[in-house]
């Protein structure tokens, strides 16, 4: 019983740490993607540039749009990150598929980032 409790506790804490790690990576990628957008890179370039593990995370940008603030217009986009569901306990492809269907993952709150429209043509 004691061994079972220890194993259960260990699994729980390790799972929590894994989720925490994924969250930290997700926030990190989201912030870096937002900063690269601010610096003038295009969304496709940013997705290509960042070392994303696509089995774990999904990074998306909305199409750029203009935001009017008083007398200026800035270009904006929303950066979203989706942390995909766990697949560590899948055994085969079918189970893995089922597991994803049951656990679609978690969306981090999207970030709206602005950039000045003064880039070179």
């Amino acid at each position, binding site marked *: 019983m004691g061994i079972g409790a220890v194993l259960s*506790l260990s699994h729980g*804490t390790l799972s*929590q*740490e894994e989720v*925490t790690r994924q*969250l*930290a990576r997700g*926030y*990190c990628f*989201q*912030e870096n993607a*937002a*900063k690269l957008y*601010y610096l003038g890179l295009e969304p496709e370039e940013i997705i290509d540039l960042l070392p994303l593990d696509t089995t774990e995370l999904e990074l998306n940008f909305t199409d750029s749009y203009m*935001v009017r*603030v*008083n*007398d*200026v*217009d*800035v270009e904006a986009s929303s950066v979203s990150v989706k942390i995909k569901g766990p697949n560590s306990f899948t055994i085969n492809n079918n189970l893995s598929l089922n597991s994803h269907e049951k656990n679609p993952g978690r969306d*981090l*709150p999207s*970030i*709206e*980032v*602005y*950039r*000045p*429209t*003064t*880039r*070179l*043509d």
Partner: protein
Amino acid sequence: MRFKEYKDRSKVSGATILMGLMVMAFGTIGLTAWVSILSARSEQVRNYEFQISHRISKLNTESIIKQSIYDNCLNSDKRTFKLYRVPNKNDVAIVRGTNGSTFLSKLSPEKYLRIGHGNGGGFQSSVLASIFTKRRNSGNINLAEGPNHFLKNYYLRSRSPILSGDLLVMHKPINSWNLNRKLFGNIHVYGNSMLWNLSELKIGDKIRTASYAIPGISNDVSVKPLKNLQDEFIAPLNFPIKAHTTGIDAEGSSYSGVLDVIDPGKSAPWSVKSAVEELANVRVNGSAVYNRGRGVMSDGSGIVNVDLGSPFLTNVIIGGNVKELHFNGQSGFVFSRADQLPAVVIIMDDSSGSSFNLSKIYFHGKNMRRLVVCVKKRIDLAMYPVDYAFTDKSGNTVWRMILIAENTHLVAVNDDIAFGDFNLIGGISTDRSFEWSNNIEKRLVIKREASPGFLEYLAPRTAWLESFRKNN
């Protein structure tokens, strides 16, 4: 002996129990610490969301400030005070602009920044900005969380790109029709070449440059690499390039690489003509006789001569009706002292109308006087090339000049050019063709102006933005 020791069994049992209790106690402490660490880690990661939100809010506010400075301060000579409230947030930005355009600024930076286009000098005006950000997870200001009010200094800096090292700048034409633009000839650039709109520019095989950059290059532009001065192919210096401008044009963006600095009209602060009008100058027209001992002569039939050795020469604005423009350098003693003559700007602008078509520009002799030559042709005459030549036959001619050519195809007259090196100290900036002889024994060498002096004020500038955190 063994039996005797066995008689102390109660002591051994007590020690074992004590050891077991200690293991349990330490285990409990360790487990508690582990759970505490995990809990703290979770809390830390949860707070990332607020931290990122805060940092991006600040970034967004800075974007608004930069856009405001580009829109309201860069090209304006009016003092600005703007307040911006970020949509759907409680963040606020305040921009306090100066009342002097950076293109007209005569204030040199207190501390030179040895980076970027302003390497070595230039001018600046400053804009102070305040950023107030509101944290999502705290209603009140908590000093332990760091400041939520930032002061930043934005410096609008300006300097002639030619003086900064862009010795050959091929700009985009303002009008987008196919102009068959060429950069051609045995030209050696001992500095950087800036090549805008490269896909519509034909470049000759004998162009050599220490480095080059292609602003705005994208994947769908096929680039033919250039060779350096050692005759090796080199890659362009393309990243990073600051956004910069020579001033807005009537139709497009400030940052699209067009050249409209000689007489952009609309009281634009980057207008060379407006700047010269505020200095000592003489006005000449090719259709009127002018010879008043000021170093410039017009015969009234479209031929204008400029004597760069004359101590009485000031800035000259030639208002069109010019067929031929002759620049006469110095010789002998005057050449060796020409460095001490005041720098001058010679503007030939027939964009408002002209009876003649400018067809020849000749540079006779050699010149050591600091000189800016601005030539702007009427747009409907821009298709006709202008022949030019350096006529000195000494074999190692020195000509000190910054040449700005708008709507002007400059094509060298091979027969009028002697064999040897022609050393142009300064640079060339044009939005049309620039063609030189392809003869290997007739080399045009473009070198950087090492001692610009008053040229810093006279040469048309480019402007860009730098920002610094204000610490006090």
